[in-house]
């Protein structure tokens, strides 16, 4: 178990770096907004059609935005040597990495969840789906970040790991996408959605508990050459 002060130090560093590099941190949100806007233009003004597609469109776009953000998760620290020092820390790496992933999950999920109602309204989604959309993003995006971090840890040593990351991670994203989009569709149509959200929550718990193990192992592999 790692001490409180080191966990605090990890969180402080993540938030500080995210604020200092705000333009890079907000890349994912820009992508999210722009692509949803393009869908609205591309599909046309038919409100019925757009509204029906909206939950799926928003979730697919959010998923791609997360992948975009996750690619940079360890890249900086690998390049400047900070990652070596993190791996040599005299603390349990599981908790250090967990703290870091939680901070990143928050930093990625909250902005996406905040802008999502606007995008949903723009795409003509039924208002009944809005709270569930926000909730599904807050539950599902952290799961995506945790899973994506495994891919990011494995590919950080490759200069252009982006495509490889997508290949590794996208199949694992599918279950989250299925249940998250289904929850929003059900809510928008006035059906019950509790089951889908519970499965999302279960996926989140599983990802939080297990992904730090895989991330630590993946990061270590980069130094075996």
């Amino acid at each position: 178990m790692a001490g409180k002060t080191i966990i605090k130090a990890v969180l402080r560093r993540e938030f500080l770096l995210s604020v200092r590099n705000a333009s890079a941190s907000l890349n994912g949100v820009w992508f999210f907004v722009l692509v949803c806007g393009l869908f609205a233009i591309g599909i046309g003004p038919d409100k019925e059609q757009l509204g029906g597609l909206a939950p799926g469109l928003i979730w697919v776009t959010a998923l791609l935005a997360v992948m975009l953000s996750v690619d940079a998760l360890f890249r900086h620290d690998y390049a400047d040597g900070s990652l070596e020092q993190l791996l040599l820390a005299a603390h349990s790496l599981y908790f250090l990495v967990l703290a870091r992933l939680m901070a990143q999950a928050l930093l990625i999920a909250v902005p996406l969840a905040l802008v999502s109602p606007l995008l949903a309204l723009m795409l003509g989604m039924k208002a009944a789906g809005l709270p569930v959309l926000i909730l599904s993003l807050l539950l599902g995006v952290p799961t995506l970040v945790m899973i994506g971090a495994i891919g990011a840890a494995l590919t950080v040593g490759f200069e252009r790991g982006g495509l490889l990351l997508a290949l590794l991670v996208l199949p694992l994203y599918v279950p989250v996408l299925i249940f998250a989009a289904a929850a929003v569709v059900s809510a928008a149509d006035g059906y019950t959605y509790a089951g889908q959200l519970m499965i999302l929550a279960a996926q989140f718990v599983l990802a939080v508990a297990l992904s730090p193990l895989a991330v630590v192992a993946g990061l270590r592999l980069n130094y075996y050459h």
Partner: protein
Amino acid sequence: MLEIRELCCERGERLLFDQFNLVCGPGDIIEIRGANGSGKSTLLRILAGLAQDYSGTVSWRESAKQASSEVSPIEFRRLSLYLGHASAVNASLTPLENLMWLTELTTPVDESRAIAALQQMQLGECEDVFCHHLSAGQQRRVALARLLTVDARLWILDEPFTALDSAGVDLLHQLIQHQVRDGGVVVLTTHLPLTGLAGVKVVQL
């Protein structure tokens, strides 16, 4: 006391070390010498515990006599300090923020000690400047300030003189001299002649 026994390690189907042995005790300065690609950095990474794909044993014991005094991996990380090619200095943080973070990972210190260390490395004026405004040599000094804040017994320094000016080189010589006088061990690689240091043991790879 650091002990390496029968270390074998291969990289890309090439045998870097075959039955490599090294024992060093308190007060030793060990210079690992070898041509480019001879495995100097790999050896230091293995010592630090960063690379674990080798056979043989690397152990650190508190005393030479008791075989049972071998320390745990976590304890070893607190006792050792590894400085790689890259300085581990984040460009978006100030020297003080960087130093506080790096010490937090092994042995936390209070801010006043970190500030004193930066001043000793002649970084007193740039404490609050973002590191991307600093030169390569100044960034290296930020990394080296850790030597002053962390009470490590074993220093593992991979090309620590890179980018340092002559005053910086002298300063680092003093730090190394001080460390071994206190009974510490320093293992380092460099392409500069270590004329300013007395009692360097050379290990040829």
